[in-house]
Every structure is written in C-alpha cells, then in structure tokens.
C-alpha cells in the first residue's frame, strides 16, 4: 500500500496523489483520511492516479464519491488518471464512469482544471 503526494510549485491548490496497492476496505479508509487532510490544508484541485492500484473494490469507489462531494462543497475539483482496464470495468458497471473526469496523463488532468 502506498500514498504519495506531489505538489506543483506555482499552483498551490493542486496536489497529485499516487495510490498504490489494493484499494480494499482496509486501505480505502486510510486513503480517505489522508485525502481529507489534504483538502483541509487547501488542496482543492486533486488529481488521483490509479496507475499502481492493483485492485479496486466498492470501498474504493465509495471514497471517490465521498471525495468528489467534499471537493464540491469547497468549490474544488477531482480528476482521476490512469485507470487500468479492471478499474474502468468496475466504474462502468456501477455507472460511475461518466460522473468522473478521467484522463490518461497528469498533464491533461492538470490543464483541464478551471
């Protein structure tokens, strides 16, 4: 399990979060706590990379819904990047794929922030 954050020098509101490992109930609650901490520190524009997420459960889906709602309350935005085939399949099945802004690269996601 891993949780790394990259900041962008001239864009203090943006943080890129790299998740790693199994996004099951165990790891999801930890991730949610860490991300809420980032939001409370003023990171209102979040890019979350799922590149190294080897497994995604409904607990993982739930935190993306929760984070999206929290960010909306503070006029923030959430972008997801690098979903693998299985993650995409799960997002599609629960009809969440169109509800999130999903990009292939960090650059695309960062440039899409308004």
């Amino acid at each position, binding site marked *: 399990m891993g949780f790394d954050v990259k900041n962008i020098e001239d864009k203090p509101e943006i943080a890129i979060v790299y998740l790693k490992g*199994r996004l*099951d*109930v*165990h790891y999801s609650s930890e991730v949610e706590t860490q991300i809420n901490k980032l939001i409370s520190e003023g990171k209102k524009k979040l890019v979350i990379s799922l590149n190294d997420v080897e*497994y995604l*459960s*409904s*607990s993982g*889906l*739930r935190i993306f*819904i*929760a984070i*999206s*709602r929290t960010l*909306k309350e503070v006029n923030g935005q959430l972008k997801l990047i690098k979903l693998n085939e*299985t993650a995409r399949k*799960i997002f599609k*099945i*629960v*009809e*969440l794929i*169109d*509800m999130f802004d999903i990009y292939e690269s960090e650059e695309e996601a960062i440039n899409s922030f308004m």
Partner: protein
Amino acid sequence: MDEIKLTSDPKNLKVIADFVGKILKKRKIKSDIIEEILLAVDEAATNIIKHSYQEKTDGNIKLILETGPDKIAVSIFDNGITFRPEDVPLPVLSKDIDNRRPGGLGIFLMKKFMDDVTFYFKGTSGRDFNEVRMVKYLN
C-alpha cells in the same frame, strides 16, 4: 475442495485474495474470470467484517472453494450478527453523483460478477453460522 480459516481482520482480505487467486490460476481459469471472482469474494468478506462482526477483528471466517469443470463455487461462513442483504438498498445508479447512496455497491458487484449469490442465515434450518454461497459458471 480447498478451505481456509482466518479471523475478521481487514488485513486478511489480501490473504483470502491470494489463496483463491493462486488456486484458480493453478486450475488455469481465465484471468478476467479470476478477477471477477476475486472481486465478489472480497466484497462478501468485507460485508462479513463490516456488518457481521461490526469491524471486530477476532471473528471467525471460513472459506471453501470448489472448482469443477463447469463451475467455481465459493462459500464463506461466519458466526457474527446475521446481516440481511435485503436490508441494504441496492444503489440507485442515477446520473447525479450527489444522489448516489453510499451503500449497496458491494452486493451489487457480487451479483454482477457471479451467476448465483445465495445467503443462508444463522438460526434458520438449525444453522449456527451465516453463509454466503456464490457460483460462477464456466461456459
């Protein structure tokens, strides 16, 4: 038939996934089928940890995996509080994220990925344990 017994510690979700995944790989089940079964098993075990054992980490869980030429069956047993899935409303797959209920996604995914999902409850037909049995047909 393969069997594993463990406690309701969320860290054991990975142990369960490794156990089931390894056996199914050895049986040369296709990787996309394995992924679907692992997801359903994880969701079922998560429900046991969260609902049957209310996140207590010392509850007993037993998993039995049966692999046949035409189907894979997984039964997971627990001795916690009877969790009736019909008490959890299935998610409303609305277009609006704000109206999404947080619960029910796990059972929804279990039913999507497996062909049969049956719950047997403690206290019925002389049972002293809960069981969720999930079957995937291979054809």
